[in-house]
């Protein structure tokens, strides 16, 4: 048997990574979609135009499915802090537990108290309260994102803590912990990325209906709103939020930046590799095609800035999987750039009134929706692989955090359980969402029923 098979820390990491990656497929859509619902409910209030309520009604159902899967896959995340990361919880529970609990009490309570009313309660609530329910759910979903990102930001860039007499971490400054600069930048970047996912999905459904010649009014609404928000959000993901995020990594985790860029050797005039494969054994980037000076400029502001390479850091502080980190980061950047180009072109065609007659473009928009999910996942892989070998950067090693009482085989067993369960859950989700999309927003019976009572 090889050693990785008997390494409980590895399997606990894999299980956490797998369950978190799957979980986050759902909240990223709800966080993005929530503001579309608010916007449409608001337009319906202002204009009285039924098409906005129809749109909100249709997307609320898809929101509801996402929300449900998000809830049930989210609970295992919190529990794993105890089951698989017991020593991490012992060390840092007093700090990171605060925001985990605050997420529950300030965000989930709000979201879950109103989500049922948002999805099904239009008749009972009336238009004004139904709009408020949409706002409450949107706020709840973004607040939960903030609390989780404060938790993650503490692991990336610990601030406001103090080491206690018993060897655990305590809180020295509440405000420093809650208003960690890392958390704000990461939150801005992450929420824009969630909007990218939400808007791409809205645009894709619009493109699908438009290509099919179905639900013409709704299709136009989705296409226009989707491509417009997608363009803005794609731009904001890159600049300023992504740019700030990279600068922060450069300042606080320089070894991570070097690994992300595959820079084995330091120097001025550092380039960004457009293409290239890191060869860790030989400590070089194979077949690189670089934009000269770009990394110096992006990370530190001038083309001449000195950017350190991996060789200037002790090898035991290197992220433990440089290749995966490099590919994740670079593919994320590539996809992000492609999103801007696609949505800029779509917005241009829309401005010229050609969006709904451009077959190729509508096909592209329809098929583009999986890629923001991939880009979001790659972004998180970059953040978390880049943090290695630390669980809390500079304070606590990942190796020291896992549950010593849980054997690797036990974790493999539960990991396989999750893989099986989530596979079925994913199929079920796709089947039901596909069915809702096939049913479409123009369900006369439902719309008449709701509007008759709401009036």
């Amino acid at each position, binding site marked *: 048997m090889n050693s990785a098979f008997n390494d409980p820390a590895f399997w606990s990491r894999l299980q956490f990574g797998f369950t978190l990656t799957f979980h986050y497929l759902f909240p990223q859509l709800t966080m993005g979609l929530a503001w579309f619902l608010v916007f449409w409910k608001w337009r319906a209030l202002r204009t009285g135009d039924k098409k906005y309520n129809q749109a909100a009604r249709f997307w609320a159902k898809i929101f509801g*499915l996402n*929300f*449900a*899967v998000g809830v*049930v*896959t989210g609970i*295992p995340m919190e*529990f794993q*802090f*105890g*089951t698989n990361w*017991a*020593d991490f*919880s*012992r060390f840092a*529970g*007093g*700090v*990171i*537990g*605060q925001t985990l*609990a*605050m997420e*529950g*009490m*300030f965000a989930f*309570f709000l*979201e*879950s*108290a*109103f*989500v*049922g*009313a948002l*999805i*099904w*309660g*239009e*008749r009972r*609530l009336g238009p004004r309260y139904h709009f408020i329910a949409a706002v409450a759910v949107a706020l709840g979903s973004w607040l939960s994102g903030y609390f989780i990102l404060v938790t993650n930001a503490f692991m990336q860039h610990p601030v406001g803590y*103090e080491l*206690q007499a018993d060897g*655990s*971490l*305590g*809180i020295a400054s*509440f405000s420093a912990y809650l208003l960690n600069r890392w958390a704000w930048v990461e939150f801005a970047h992450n929420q824009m990325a969630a909007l990218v996912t939400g808007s791409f999905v809205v645009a894709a459904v619009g493109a699908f209906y438009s290509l099919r010649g179905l639900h013409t009014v709704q299709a136009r609404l989705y296409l226009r709103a989707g491509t417009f928000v997608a363009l803005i959000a794609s731009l904001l993901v890159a600049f300023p939020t992504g740019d700030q995020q990279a600068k922060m990594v450069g300042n606080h985790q320089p070894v991570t930046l070097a690994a992300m860029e595959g820079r084995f050797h330091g120097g001025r005039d550092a380039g960004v590799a457009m293409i290239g494969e890191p060869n860790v054994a030989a400590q070089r980037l194979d077949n690189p095609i670089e934009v000269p000076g770009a990394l110096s400029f992006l990370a530190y502001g001038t083309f001449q800035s000195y950017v350190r390479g991996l060789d200037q850091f002790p090898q035991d502080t290197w992220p433990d999987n440089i290749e995966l980190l490099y590919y994740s980061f670079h593919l994320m950047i590539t996809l992000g750039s492609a999103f801007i180009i696609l949505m800029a072109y779509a917005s241009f065609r829309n401005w010229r009134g050609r969006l709904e007659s451009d077959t190729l473009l509508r096909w592209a928009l329809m098929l583009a929706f999986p890629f923001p999910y991939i880009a979001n996942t790659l972004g998180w892989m970059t953040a978390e692989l880049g943090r290695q070998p630390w669980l809390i950067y500079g304070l606590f090693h990942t190796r020291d955090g896992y*549950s*010593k*009482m*849980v054997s690797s085989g*036990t974790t493999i067993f*539960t990991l396989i*359980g999750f893989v099986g*369960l989530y596979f079925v*859950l994913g199929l079920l989700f796709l089947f*039901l969402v596909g*069915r809702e999309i096939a049913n479409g927003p123009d369900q006369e019976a*439902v719309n008449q*029923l709701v509007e008759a009572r709401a009036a």
Partner: protein
Amino acid sequence: MIETWYIIICLMLITYVLLDGRNWGAGMILGLVATAQERRQVIAAIGPLWSWHEVWLVGFGGTLVAVFPKLMASAFAGYYLALFLILWSLILRGVSLEVGGHINDRMWQGFWDFVFVVSNFLLAILFGTAAGNLARGVPLDGHGDFSMAFFSDFRVRGYVGLLDWYTVSVALFAAVLMAAHGATYLVLKTEGAVHDRSETFAKYLWVAVAPLLIMVTVESRVVRPDLPGRAIHNPVLWLGLLMITVSTITLVSGRLSHREGRAFLGSNFLLVGLLTTGGAAIFPVMLHSTLSPENSLTAYSVAANPSALRFALIWWPMGLALAVAYFVFISRQYAGKVSVNRDNQGFY
């Protein structure tokens, strides 16, 4: 400070059990009602609020990490497989409720109703087993760690397993109690055939709860002879016992006079009273060691450092105030009996 947090943690867990207990109980009753139409009515009674009930577990779990991190670490790692069974049951329960309403088809809904019944039954049994384990203790070693099998020799001392004669009987008690609680809830929230059927179930289930409660009390005395001597000086224990008495009277009088709201109130406070008594009885030990009393984890030994406890005491009351506000909103929005046409995961 640590006592305050012990009380808060217990309150959060109790709130979760009260709220999700409705789902477990109604879920088990769902397996007993006759027609598909009636099953829709039971689902409607749980309706759009299951996630609101379930997030109390998230609030509890997060608070546990924040204020008793060492307990979370020991207990969750030690109960590893049992906890994943709970997690998977929660996933199946939520999914079955959510997707069942999406397709109006007998086979589809029949299948998901079945999953719903089984997962709720499992949850009631698993949480009951967990309660039994908390009372009996686990084989904690000198480092505050343990790992245990699903069952060993079914005895309650030494290297115990998750299941033994005591924890199994507590689980049985919990399942019957939760079914009774769920039936009482359904009596309040439904009308017609389900209402009448739930009346009957509630009657028999509450009658069954009484001897089981006496049995579990006697058993607890046998399993933990050390408890009464210490707990008798704890005023909260007496508060719990008083609550049990008053709520039992409320429940019985509510049932006999067909005041459904009163009966349900009694049912809720009976649960609060039972859990309060249990929580007060074991305090300050949070996890008892069956190997040696010195290995036990007390609230004082597992609490986070004072700075963490102080910080949490700032935001927690704000969170609670908001939760109460949502609770008022929910009570007003969803007051009264449900009707299948209106609340069955359809637009209402």
